[in-house]
């Protein structure tokens, strides 16, 4: 049963009492209770599958609860559909942004709520409303006429928030809002959230990043297996306590580290430049080490990996793989040389979502599961079955479609493909983005194991604690080149951010 905090405000803005929801035999929510005061930022924490998204869908009117009560400012709140919920003052910002990419900022902010007379849009009025919404979140410098397509992800998200504000929401639900933001953009977003909170808007903040929840939220509720297992003031709880609540067991070590020594250089880049980015990358990766790469979005981390892997054009510089010069290359040749790339976009690029687990795992090495030139279903299933066990993937079998798996399990399949390929140099681009804590811990353990076997891992991430926890060395990228590569012991979190940001400001001053 949930514990109630003793310091409840007299009339909560939103009250959720004993909400349950079943889908057939699956119990998604099992008596969840939650209270949010006016102007409070409330973190909703839980692993994937804990019921967060179902609860949000109940709040936004997409699902009707089987039992329980929702109260909004003392009034019963029974949303029949998302539009109804919005009109009642409960707005939702989804993880995947819902903007029309070709329409302008102004048009998007008022989309579906255009001020109009007899079907004619009152443009001046629309402009005024859009401006006011942007001002409210301190973004008056946003270009109103720019098409959404031309904005960064962070800017797009702010537009989405402005759009939600037009409806004068009482409760704003944000689902993983920082999953594709850099630290700086995230800081900016936290400022916006604080502003809204001061205006009396209650915010329910869903995130995997616990540090973020601590930073932004006043109180938290942890969901596990469809139940609210703990709630309280953020300040009074330690990260370890919350993680323990989330996974229901003690995590001794999220970041395992066995002793290992780096060996021979396996990948050497000198002066590598792509079309726009990177501009000049020099780097040496050794066997048996994990090299972390940090940088802001736009620093050229992904572009570097893509150019090295032969996906994008490499304009200048030299690449050696296993001490052999191999600058010009294609993904096929890189794979043949034992280099594997994990894409940062597992849905858009990393996986064949409507193909089976088996096909996805064996895609780069169909030869290993073929007999007489024909791909053998049995051999494929056997090979995949081993990986499913080894990587602890929750799937009904090798023939399940990858698109049906949860984010963490999908990511394990994408990594599993590199393992089945037996790649000796692994370029991992944001391998833990948007997946649950349990899966993250498994991926850290796996990386540790791979480095212990003498494989070389490049680990690109925007999340500093994991870089500091897992890597042997960390390099910080800024403006298309590595500013600095040092052993992890010589870095502090602050120094890394300063290197990533400070350099950028210096660069601007010089220009």
């Amino acid at each position, binding site marked *: 049963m949930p514990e109630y905090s003793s310091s409840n405000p007299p009339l909560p803005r939103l009250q959720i009492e004993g909400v349950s929801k*079943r889908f*057939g*035999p699956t119990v998604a929510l099992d008596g969840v209770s939650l209270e949010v005061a006016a102007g409070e930022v409330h973190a909703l924490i839980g692993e994937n599958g804990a019921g967060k998204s179902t609860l949000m869908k109940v709040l936004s009117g997409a699902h009707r609860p089987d039992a329980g009560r929702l109260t909004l400012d003392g009034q019963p709140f029974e949303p029949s559909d998302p539009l109804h919920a919005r009109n009642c003052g409960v707005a939702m910002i989804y993880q995947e942004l819902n903007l029309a990419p070709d329409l302008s900022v102004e048009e998007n902010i008022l989309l579906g709520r255009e001020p109009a007379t007899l079907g004619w849009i009152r443009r001046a009025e629309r402009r005024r409303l859009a401006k006011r919404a942007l001002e409210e979140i301190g973004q008056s410098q946003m270009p109103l006429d720019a098409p959404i397509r031309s904005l960064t992800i962070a800017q797009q998200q702010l537009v989405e928030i402005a759009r939600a504000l037009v409806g004068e929401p009482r409760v704003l639900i944000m689902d993983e809002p920082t999953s594709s933001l850099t630290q700086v953009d995230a800081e900016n977003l936290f400022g916006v959230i604080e502003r809204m909170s001061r205006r009396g808007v209650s915010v329910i903040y869903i995130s995997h990043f616990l540090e973020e929840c601590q930073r932004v939220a006043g109180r938290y509720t942890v969901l596990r297996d469809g139940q609210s297992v703990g709630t309280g003031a953020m300040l009074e709880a330690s990260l370890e306590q919350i993680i323990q609540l989330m996974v229901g067991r003690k995590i001794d070590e999220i970041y395992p580290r066995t002793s290992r020594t780096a060996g021979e250089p396996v990948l050497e880049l000198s002066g590598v430049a792509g079309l726009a980015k990177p501009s000049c990358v020099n780097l040496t990766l050794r066997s048996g080490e994990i090299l972390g790469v940090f940088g802001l979005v736009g620093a050229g981390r992904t572009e570097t990996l893509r150019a090295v892997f032969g*996906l994008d054009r490499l304009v200048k510089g030299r690449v050696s793989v296993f001490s052999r010069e191999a600058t010009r290359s*294609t*993904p*096929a*040749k*890189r*794979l*043949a040389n034992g280099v594997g*790339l994990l*894409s940062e976009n597992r849905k*858009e*690029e*990393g*996986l*064949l*979502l*409507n*193909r089976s687990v088996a*096909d996805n795992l064996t*895609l*780069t090495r*169909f*030869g290993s599961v*073929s007999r007489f*030139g*024909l*791909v*053998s279903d049995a051999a494929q299933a056997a090979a995949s079955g081993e990986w499913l066990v080894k990587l602890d993937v929750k799937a009904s079998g090798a*023939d399940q*479609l990858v698109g049906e798996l949860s984010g963490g399990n999908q990511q394990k399949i994408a990594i599993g*493909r590199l393992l089945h390929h037996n790649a000796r140099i692994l370029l991992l681009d944001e391998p833990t983005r948007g997946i649950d804590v349990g899966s993250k811990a498994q991926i850290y353990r796996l990386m540790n194991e791979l480095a212990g076997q003498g494989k070389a891992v490049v680990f690109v991430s925007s999340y500093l604690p994991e870089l500091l926890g897992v890597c042997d060395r960390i390099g910080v990228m800024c403006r298309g080149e590595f500013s600095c590569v040092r052993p992890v012991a010589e870095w502090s979190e602050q120094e890394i951010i300063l290197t990533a940001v400070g350099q950028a400001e210096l660069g601007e001053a010089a220009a």
Partner: protein
Amino acid sequence: MNWAKLGSSGFLKAIRPFVGLFVVLLLFAMDGELRSVIFKGGNFKTILTQTVIVAIGAMGMTMVIVSGGIDLSAGSVVALCSVVTARLIEQGHGFAGVLALTVLIGGLVGLANGGIITTVRMMPFIVTLGMMGIARGISKWLANNQTVNPEQPLESVNRLMDNSQSPLTFFPLPNGVWLALGLAVVMAVVLRSTVFGRYVFAIGSNEDTARLCGIRVNFNKVVIYALAGAFFGLAGVMQFSRLTQGDPSVAIGLELQIIAAVVIGGASLSGGAGSIPGSVIGAFMMACLANGSSIKDWPNYMQEIIIGVVIILAVGMDKVEPFIQRLFKRQSSSN
């Protein structure tokens, strides 16, 4: 056999064309007049013969559609190749020469399609729409804008689609039917089980992933369009054989029939799904409907309406099936 798998959506989807065909035949069997005619061996032979052209075209088109593309030039290429067949026979080529050269010409048109699509990075829809006009134009040019009737017919080619020997019995089937069946088996294996076939699915499912995984996407696409062109070329030979003349204005709109067969067979126009057996069944189902309609003496427009409805039903099942599954689930959970 794992019984749980029988209820999976993948299995339901795979057997859908067969179920559809069964339903069509069942409906035919309920009508006395149809029943007495349609299931006769001779008539079944006619249906099979009428299936051949669309079925062979559908084998090529299935590859293209599974890879996420489309080929609108199919009908024009069939017409072009029927004229090419006629011209080759006029020049005195033998059976093997006619067959090989015509298929080659079809393959070259496909090669051009694939080449333009990959090197200039244009939409397959636009490129093959252009090629549809070009191939049609060339076929009229080659035929001097009239039908081409070789003075000395080549019996072996004419017999491919000739079902007039012993019209009342099922056997012997025309050679074209055997050829189509054999190709269907081979292509089913190629698309399902060879590495090339898996690559076709991978490219159609997600081109970026395919590239990431070292698949030579452009090269494979060129191969796919060229192979598809070769199949349309072979369908052109069959088209010639059916009319025993090269006709530059034949097979107008055939590409849409072929696409319909592929879609009825379970392929997705967004790529990554489809099968050769499904497409061939789709072609067969359309021939059955046409045959049934003509037996009932329904006017042509009725056939067109019926086939249109079938296409929508076949693809609509995608949306209906989850709904039905949910209904079942709700029922089983309330019990």
